């Protein structure tokens, strides 16, 4: 375990997540009010969007940005096929549940990405600002693939589909991320300067408290879980490893820098637990949230935060030959 990995476990951000896990396992009544948690999640999305936009306003949009976008969208569309196959064959899930879970693994987790950015920056491998746009673009394609897999080609009611598409493209996180990203581009570094004390200086601290809450929620959910088999646990750890490795490797092959490659790997590895569950509840009410939420939130999310981000970072360094830790 090298210095960079160790650093992960002395970072307050990760330690607060561990505290949340431990407190919930010890059955402490520690809890963060929902309104506060919701507020923090909006803050984090606005801040990451803004920062990404400001970064792009400096660097401009070049072919790398387009390549990363295409790569991310393709991954989000295609990853659910593989996940669906594994979930059915090895995980022994039915068609509906397999499709629903697959959608989660094709989509992304904003908080996992945000935590990865913090860790990569601390290792001197900052991802490009445009990765925020890549993240936003990756949220929704997987939902379409997942539904296709779960319901087959012939969707019955067309009216409901347009409702769903609207819900998916204008869902709160996509709108806020892309909106803040656009504001960052328009306002630029100068305009951002005015609000930087709020959106930049407070960022890591808010992330600490938010991860504390995520730790509490993740651990409480797994203690209540009933529908989870050992096969599903294996998949919830195996998929982020495989998807992450493929994503990182593809990004390096396409010429992205080390930080952006690791970040794309983390995006591929991460599983949604906000946008996709809400969409699945609407479109696939027969699917069991006890399966898809527990897998993505209680197993994959902690695994990514505690271990997989570090692995993707090392992998990207190894593949690009650029170690960030010693500048």
């Amino acid at each position, binding site marked *: 375990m090298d210095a960079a990995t160790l650093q992960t476990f002395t970072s307050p951000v990760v330690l607060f997540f561990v505290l949340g896990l431990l407190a919930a396992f010890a059955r402490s009544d520690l809890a963060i009010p*929902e309104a506060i948690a919701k507020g923090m999640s909006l803050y984090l999305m606005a801040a990451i969007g803004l920062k990404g936009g400001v970064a792009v306003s400096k660097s401009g949009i070049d072919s790398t940005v387009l390549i990363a976008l295409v790569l991310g969208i393709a991954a989000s569309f295609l990853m659910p096929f593989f996940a669906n196959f594994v979930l059915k064959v090895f995980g022994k899930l039915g068609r509906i549940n397999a499709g629903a879970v697959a959608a989660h693994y094709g989509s992304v987790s904003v908080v996992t990405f945000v935590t990865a950015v913090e860790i990569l920056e601390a290792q001197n491998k900052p991802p490009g600002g445009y990765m925020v746009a890549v993240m936003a673009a990756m949220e929704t394609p997987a939902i379409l693939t997942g539904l296709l897999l779960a319901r087959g080609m012939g969707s019955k009611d067309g009216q409901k589909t347009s409702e769903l598409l609207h819900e998916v493209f204008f869902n709160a996180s996509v709108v806020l991320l892309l909106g803040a990203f656009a504001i960052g581009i328009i306002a630029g570094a100068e305009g951002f300067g005015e609000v930087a004390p709020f959106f930049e200086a407070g960022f890591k601290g808010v992330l600490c408290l938010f991860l504390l809450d995520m730790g509490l929620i993740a651990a409480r959910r797994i203690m209540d879980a009933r529908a989870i088999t050992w096969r599903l646990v294996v998949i919830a750890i195996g998929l982020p490893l495989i998807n992450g490795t493929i994503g990182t490797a593809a990004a390096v092959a396409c010429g992205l820098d080390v930080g952006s490659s690791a970040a794309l790997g983390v995006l591929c590895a991460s599983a949604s*637990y906000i946008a996709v569950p809400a969409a699945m509840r609407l479109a696939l*009410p027969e699917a069991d949230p006890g399966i898809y939420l527990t897998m993505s*939130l209680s197993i994959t999310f902690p695994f990514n935060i505690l271990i997989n981000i570090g692995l993707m970072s090392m992998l990207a360094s190894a593949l690009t030959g650029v170690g960030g830790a010693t500048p």
Partner: protein
Amino acid sequence: MIETVVRKRIEILTDTALLGRVTDAVDKVGITGWTVVPVSSGKGRDGRWREERVMGTDKVFVLTIASQDKAQALAEELAPVLTKYGFILSMWDVEVIRGERF
């Protein structure tokens, strides 16, 4: 003495994300209004839930008061969604003042 009339009070537990479908149905059958009450946690066949507001999978109660006829029409209107999404609908008789408005 104040006069009271008997109406139905209907209570529907629904996903927050699907609130619009329920209130559309209330409007459609011609009920004058409705009120939404927040819900903080619960347990059903799918197990326990709480603090799902961060995940957008939380629930609310929709309360509405209506005549017997409209209440029945609302129940008919909502029946397919209820079964599909596992909502809960219950109703009972209440006495109300200013009954003409319901």
